[in-house]
């Protein structure tokens, strides 16, 4: 391969900075949503502000602390069983790729599902987890599986997993809070209108619109970076395996295999190597992943 190794240090530093910016954006967004709800419910702004920030920070902290377990349980993943030859060989592949990347060996999980997919999660390389579906173990050959694991290993080494995992939590929380708030407003809409003067109604409307838009906005922030990171992980993964064709073939198999909705895929979807949802949604601006055809084309041109 003629590709020059990137200065991975610089790349990781930039990624850490991005991660910080995105986490701050998420705190601000979460804070604003809580503030808007407080405002609509008629609480004094100062009080809401004093409450909203700790709540937002606390939530991010909780998401950070429990993200790995919650992703694993959402996916219904279990640790590999070394008695099973396929799962043992997956463990071997992960060890090999970790050596190539020069990072500690992540914990290895499998998810029982017919689809071909895999994801990585964790905060830092030391506590990372790689999970593959049983479908991937059965349908991919050794070279293809290596390509997929190389891709996931690059996410871990490039420090993509933290921002991916935390955003998955926060995006979910904002969506949930917004939904609860809108339901509450729907039920108590009449009363709060009576309590307030007519002048506030415009601000209340703005706050409601904001609550409706917040989940969309939080998703878009995340999507903006997620697709670029997928291309990078493809390229870095190919550099680790020295074999772009392996991942390209695996992606072709994923494309041919019409994905069913695996367990917990809504929560875990952005973490997977390929979007687990139906084909129609795949290539829209809502995709967390770039189109498979484009990824395969780029891998083949390396």
């Amino acid at each position: 391969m003629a590709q020059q190794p990137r200065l991975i240090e610089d790349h990781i530093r930039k990624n850490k900075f991005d991660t910080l910016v995105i986490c701050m954006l998420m705190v601000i967004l979460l804070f604003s949503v809580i503030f808007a709800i407080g405002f609509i419910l008629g609480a004094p702004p100062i009080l809401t502000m004093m409450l909203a920030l700790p709540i937002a920070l606390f939530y991010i902290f909780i998401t950070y602390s429990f993200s790995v377990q919650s992703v694993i349980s959402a996916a219904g993943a279990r640790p590999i069983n070394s008695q099973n030859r396929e799962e043992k060989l997956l463990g071997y592949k992960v060890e090999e790729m970790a050596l190539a990347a020069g990072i500690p060996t992540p914990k290895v999980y499998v998810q029982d599902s017919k689809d071909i997919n895999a994801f990585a999660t964790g905060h830092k390389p030391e506590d990372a987890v790689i999970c593959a579906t049983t479908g991937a173990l059965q349908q991919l050959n050794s070279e293809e599986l290596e390509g997929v694991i190389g891709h996931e290993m690059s996410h871990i080494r490039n420090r993509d997993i933290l921002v991916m995992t935390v955003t998955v939590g926060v995006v979910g929380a904002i969506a949930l809070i917004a939904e609860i708030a809108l339901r509450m407003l729907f039920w108590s809409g009449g009363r709060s209108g009576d309590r307030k003067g007519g002048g506030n109604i415009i601000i209340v409307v703005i706050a409601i619109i904001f609550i409706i838009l917040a989940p969309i906005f939080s998703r878009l922030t995340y999507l903006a970076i997620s697709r670029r990171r997928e291309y990078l992980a493809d390229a870095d993964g190919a550099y680790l395996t020295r074999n772009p064709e392996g991942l390209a073939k695996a992606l072709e198999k994923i494309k041919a295999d019409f994905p069913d909705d695996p367990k917990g895929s809504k929560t875990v979807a952005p973490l997977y190597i390929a979007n687990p949802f139906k084909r129609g949604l795949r290539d829209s601006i809502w995709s967390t992943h770039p189109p498979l055809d484009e990824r395969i084309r780029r891998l083949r041109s390396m």
Partner: protein
Amino acid sequence: MDLMLIIGLVVLLIVVVILLWFFSYYNRVVRYENRIDNAWAQIDVQLKRRADLIPNLMETVKGYMNHERQTLEAVTKARSAVMTAKNPQDSIDADNMLTGALKTLFAVSESYPDLKANQNFLQLQDELTHTEEKIAYSRQHFNDSVLQFNNLIETFPGNIFANMMGKKERQMLQIPEASREVPKVSF
């Protein structure tokens, strides 16, 4: 008087900037160099691990492959070469010999159905292949680390600092092309 103060401050600022720059380079060079040493340690662990697996393998195949004295001897010889190698390049060369010998052994084993059905043998074969891959990947990581280190200390302005620190370019591990060939099996 004021002018002197300003010049003094500017000079001080420049010195501080150069010092900070030097510190960051110094730390980088040390970090990269440690990574190379660590990468070598990883290879070494895998080489030992593979050498440790060989006696078990010999024990398992002995009963089945009595007629393959030459093949078995080649493996034993390569193993002791790995155990006695003095420097990194020797270890790698000896390990390539072992890889070749094992490839022949596994190719020959295809014609012994009893051996191929032996669970112990299958497990050893998986594990030896895995260790071989691990050696290949840690060797790759070693060479990647050396390349990064060499790039750092040979390009401007890193080369100035590297000279001051007395750091020299590191050698990559050479992998002979012959080891990639498919072994010729003769019965």
